């Protein structure tokens, strides 16, 4: 609500007519304006113009009936799957990075110790499964390399 002092001259009242029309003037100034409008044809004509503009805007149109629901839900699920795949890929990358670290460590230690390499390979297999039937070779190729490296390490 906009609280304004309303006098009785049109120059001061004219800029307030819009707020009055929209019910945005406080009760007191609005009452003052009601009184003025009853006796001032110029300001009353201005209000009639505001009404006419509102009336004409009805012609800005109504839309035909459509339901966006199915399209929005499909787009949302697609995005949810994409985000999930991204998270999985990021997790896999972290696993691989730490796995490579472990491998490097075990290779440096020599064949005497058996580190967690088999665990790592199993995890990567489940990751590639999650991505099937994606035909791209990225992760599977990498995990294959790692498995090979793992076998090499155990030899």
């Amino acid at each position: 609500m906009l609280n304004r002092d309303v006098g009785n001259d049109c120059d001061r009242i004219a800029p307030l007519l819009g707020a009055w029309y929209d019910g945005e003037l406080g009760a007191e100034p609005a009452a003052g304006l009601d009184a003025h409008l009853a006796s001032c044809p110029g300001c009353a004509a201005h209000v009639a113009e505001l009404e006419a503009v509102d009336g004409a805007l009805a012609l800005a149109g109504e839309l035909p009936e459509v339901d966006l629901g199915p399209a929005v839900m499909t787009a949302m699920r697609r995005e949810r799957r994409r985000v999930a795949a991204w998270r999985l890929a990021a997790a896999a990358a972290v696993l691989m990075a730490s796995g490579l670290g472990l491998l490097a460590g075990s290779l440096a230690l020599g064949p005497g110790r058996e580190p967690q390499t088999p665990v790592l390979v199993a995890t990567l297999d489940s990751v590639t499964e999650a991505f099937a039937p994606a035909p791209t070779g990225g992760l599977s190729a990498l995990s294959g390399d790692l498995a090979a490296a793992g076998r090499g390490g155990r030899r």
Partner: protein
Amino acid sequence: MPSPDPDHQLMARLAGGDDSALAELVARWQRPVLAHVARFLGCPPEEAQDIAQEAFLRVWRERRRFEPRAAFSTWLFAIVLNLCRNRRRSAQRRPVLVPIGVDGAGEPFPAIEAGADADPLACARASELEGKVRRALRSLPESQRAAVLLRRFEGMSYREIATVLGSSEGAVESLLVRARRALAAAIFGDDRSRAQEKGGSGVEP
């Protein structure tokens, strides 16, 4: 205590992982959102649907960032307005792809249906006025146009409009004054001068 506002309840369900709440929000809000986009951009219905769909997808993306203190309507319309402005800018960069308002092609709304017994002259006048209204709206600056549409069709208060536009109530008041003055001049300008010639009051549409 859960908030009694149905939109707030739906947003809480959405944030909690209940996707079906999104379908309910779409069902509640798609009509005003679609109509607002089409009136604001003066674009064909397909483009309005595209933008409205993207707006609801954003509602889902931002579901955990919605503040229950805010009104859902102002939050939603701020998203919608933002998308409309971006679309307008990218359309300006490649104007050839957006055939808006060329000889009635690409009009956002179907023309008023003429009944079998309709007076053809009255119909012609109605569609002439319709065209004037749409052109007048399109010629308003974006903030004025958004303010006038949110006031007229969403019944928003000055405070709510200010929240959508990120401005003040006083700024909204003056946006509306300027918008309505410009609309009156563009829509009734000719009739007004005609009426004045006849000695009328000049405010009849």
